[in-house]
């Protein structure tokens, strides 16, 4: 009989606090086949692993069960330890007595009893485990970065720097993301364009980087090292290879009433446009919703003025298919819509703006040429009120429950910049509290208060009322002075919460990457694997994983690149040996399994078998391509004759677990 070793982890008090670990080890130790059962404070530690290894060697164990945290956590650790001692790593099973026991139950007897049952199930399973050897698959040495904000740009540059080709897919006509819209950046107050645009140009000039702007990912198949991705290149009605970016068309186009999306609708642009002067690629795009030629065939001015002959009204979406070894999601964020915040009069008064709109109003390349003017009448505002946490840290269901993290700092920045340029303007900031954890962040905020005389008031704004004379009445509470305030303001700026880009959720589905309830991508481990998604080969960069400022975004972007480089540097990847296999003697060649396989991993072979009376029978039987099979097990259930089974999760293993639990 196989000798099994059982190791029960205390996980400090995480498990031992609720589960009587010694009793579990004792109970499991009495089961048939169990040669050794022990408990230890930290099984995953060096000495815990040594204990396992020693037992494998000394007791000549043929199977190991660890009762510990989730297998998603440390299965790999314990498998490695077993392998180091010459035991096949797939002869290790984990009983999850932390996440699924000690952390959710309070009653000690109940939790202990459950731990024993879970341990028993794992023992019964491991008795039926077979030693498995993983296959290998090649790695396509090219990476895909989805999203061309500062996160995507930095990741792509770092990967290219290491010598691997990278493609950036950006849904907008230009890369740059939100950072391209910002004016100056905290905490150093250097101008965003001055530090971003050189990086954009670097992307365009780097031989290893291809930029697919105005494009989206439409299909993803394959797996780590071998993704196949279909990219939809949306029709921009301009031949990218011919357009020189001279801008002639964008000046002559007669359709002048198009809200300028880059300036957040604060001014208008033409139907054919280049988002901003330093756009990369610097190529015009026709906005099909507004172009008269595309809508009713009446115009054609841009084609006439284009010296390069780049305009092509008949252009259609095209699809390209590429192979990648790794994919990085860098889809960023956006400010939430404020349509549900009527109390702040956003949408009622043009002088109530979001912080991102203010960035454009202060930007030298923005609609006002960098002079801060009220959008309604173009006058200089003398009192500006900032409202923080609009939709952040909000439990009423209207906004987001989380802290958007960047608003305290950019509001301090805005307040400081206004006071510096226009010392005659009074600036009030209403906050729940001010959060400044970051290098030089608190100093920055204190400078706003102490040097620039910004009035910070702890309290929330209840209502903003547009008055007939064009001013805005702000009603607020001052929690420290414990009084109601009524202020007359010329401009009100709302620090809107940030949320993930809405295209992230469908993208996550394509990538089979998981998301949290707020639609931010989840990381493989919140502390230890912050730039990897739980889906192998998919990495995370920037604000798509959670609200972040630029320094943090760039740090994460570099970390994601390092992970990608590590993956692409490998020539072969070791696959998952838990794949399907067919018993030729049982298979009747019915094709049921082939039809349900999502990967096309099953094919049929004509094989010769010994028939009665020394005859030879030819039969058609199923065969599984282990390199392609992903191990879902759909075929095992579809097979009517029970010929298909799955390594690592075999019929007999699962049945044995069922039996152990029900007993």
């Amino acid at each position, binding site marked *: 009989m196989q000798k099994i070793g059982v190791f029960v982890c205390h996980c400090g008090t995480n498990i031992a606090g609720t589960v009587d670990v010694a009793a579990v080890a004792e109970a499991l130790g009495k089961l048939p086949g169990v040669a050794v059962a022990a408990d230890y404070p930290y099984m995953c530690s060096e000495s815990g692993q040594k204990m396992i290894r020693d037992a494998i060697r000394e007791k000549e164990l043929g199977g190991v069960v660890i009762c510990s945290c989730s297998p998603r956590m440390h299965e790999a650790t314990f498998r490695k330890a077993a392998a180091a001692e010459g035991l096949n790593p797939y002869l290790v099973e984990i009983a999850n007595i932390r996440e699924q026991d000690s952390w959710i139950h309070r009653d*000690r007897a109940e939790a202990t009893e459950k731990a024993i049952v879970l341990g028993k199930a794992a023992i019964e399973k491991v008795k039926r485990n077979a030693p498995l050897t993983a296959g290998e698959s090649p790695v396509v040495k090219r990476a895909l970065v989805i999203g061309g904000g500062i996160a995507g740009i930095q990741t792509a540059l770092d990967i290219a720097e290491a010598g691997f080709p990278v493609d950036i897919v950006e849904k907008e006509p230009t890369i740059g993301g939100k950072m391209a819209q910002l004016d100056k950046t905290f905490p150093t107050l250097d101008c965003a364009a001055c530090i971003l645009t050189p990086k954009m140009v670097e992307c365009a000039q780097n031989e290893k980087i291809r930029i697919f702007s105005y494009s989206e990912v439409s299909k993803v198949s394959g797996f780590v090292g071998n993704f196949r991705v279909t990219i939809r290149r949306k029709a921009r009605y301009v031949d990218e290879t011919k357009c020189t970016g001279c801008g002639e068309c964008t000046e002559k186009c007669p359709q002048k009433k198009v809200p300028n999306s880059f300036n957040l609708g604060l001014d208008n642009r033409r139907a054919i446009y280049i988002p901003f002067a330093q756009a990369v690629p610097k190529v015009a795009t026709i906005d099909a919703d507004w172009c008269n030629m595309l809508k009713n065939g009446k115009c054609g001015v841009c084609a006439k003025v284009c010296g390069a002959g780049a305009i092509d009204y008949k252009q259609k979406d095209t699809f390209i298919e590429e192979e990648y070894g790794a994919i990085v999601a860098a889809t960023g964020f956006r400010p939430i819509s404020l349509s549900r915040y009527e109390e702040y009069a956003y949408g009622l008064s043009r002088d109530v703006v979001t912080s991102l709109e203010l960035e454009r109003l202060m930007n030298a390349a923005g609609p006002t040429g960098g002079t801060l003017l009220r959008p309604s009448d173009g006058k200089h505002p003398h009192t500006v009120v900032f409202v923080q946490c609009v939709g952040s840290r909000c439990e009423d269901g209207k906004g987001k429950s989380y802290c958007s993290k960047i608003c305290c700092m950019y509001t301090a920045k805005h307040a400081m910049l206004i006071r510096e340029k226009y010392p005659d303007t009074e600036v009030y900031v209403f906050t729940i509290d001010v959060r400044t954890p970051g290098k030089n962040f608190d100093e920055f905020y204190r400078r706003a208060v102490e040097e620039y005389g910004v009035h910070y008031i702890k309290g929330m704004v209840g209502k903003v009322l547009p008055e007939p004379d064009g001013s805005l009445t702000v009603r607020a509470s001052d929690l420290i002075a414990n009084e109601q305030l009524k202020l007359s303001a010329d401009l009100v700026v709302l620090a809107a919460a940030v949320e993930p880009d809405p295209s992230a959720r469908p993208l996550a589905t394509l990538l089979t990457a998981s998301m949290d309830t707020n639609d931010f991508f989840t990381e493989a481990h919140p502390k230890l694997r912050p730039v990897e998604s739980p889906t192998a080969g998919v990495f995370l960069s920037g604000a798509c994983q959670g609200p972040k400022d630029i320094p943090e975004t760039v740090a994460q972007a570099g970390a994601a690149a390092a992970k990608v480089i590590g993956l692409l540097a490998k020539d072969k990847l070791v696959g998952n040996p838990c794949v399907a296999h067919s018993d030729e003697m049982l298979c009747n060649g019915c094709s049921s399994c082939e039809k349900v396989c999502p990967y096309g991993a099953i094919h049929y072979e004509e094989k010769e078998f010994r028939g009665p009376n020394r005859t030879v029978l030819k039969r058609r039987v199923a065969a599984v391509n282990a390199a392609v099979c992903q191990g879902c097990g759909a075929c095992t*259930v*579809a097979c009517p004759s029970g010929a298909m089974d799955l390594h690592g999760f075999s019929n007999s293993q699962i049945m044995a677990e069922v039996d152990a639990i029900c007993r």
Partner: protein
Amino acid sequence: MPMNSPEKNGVGKEEAFRPKIVAFCCNWCSYAGADLAGTSRLSYPAEVKIIRVPCSCRVNPTFILRAFGRGADGVILCGCHPGDCHYTTGNYYTRRRMTLLFSMLDYLGIERERTRVEWVSAAEGAKFAETMRDFVATVTALGKNRRLEDLRCRN
């Protein structure tokens, strides 16, 4: 803290009915959802024992019959939301297979509430705990599964 001997199944003499519940969870979403329930310390009854399967489509209807045969009082199968299956289509098969199995169980006179299919994502720790609490309460109210239990398997 006084401790009851864990070997004995149960505590007092007039013990309240505690159902045996088997939960099959796909590795990618629901098992992760269960882990999240754990990390978030969201409790649900200890009667629930989880079996990890790669995908909900790995669950053969015979596993469920086996569980009932061995004395389970309720079986719940959890997978990724439709469209989110790690293997893209697995849970669609699950949905169809389980519809058939459930109508067969119905035909056999097994209360429909003893079996359930739920879609729980890796982010839905709260939903996982809530679902399990609800399922255990439902099965507890139904009482013991006598119809399908194979008495030869009892020990």
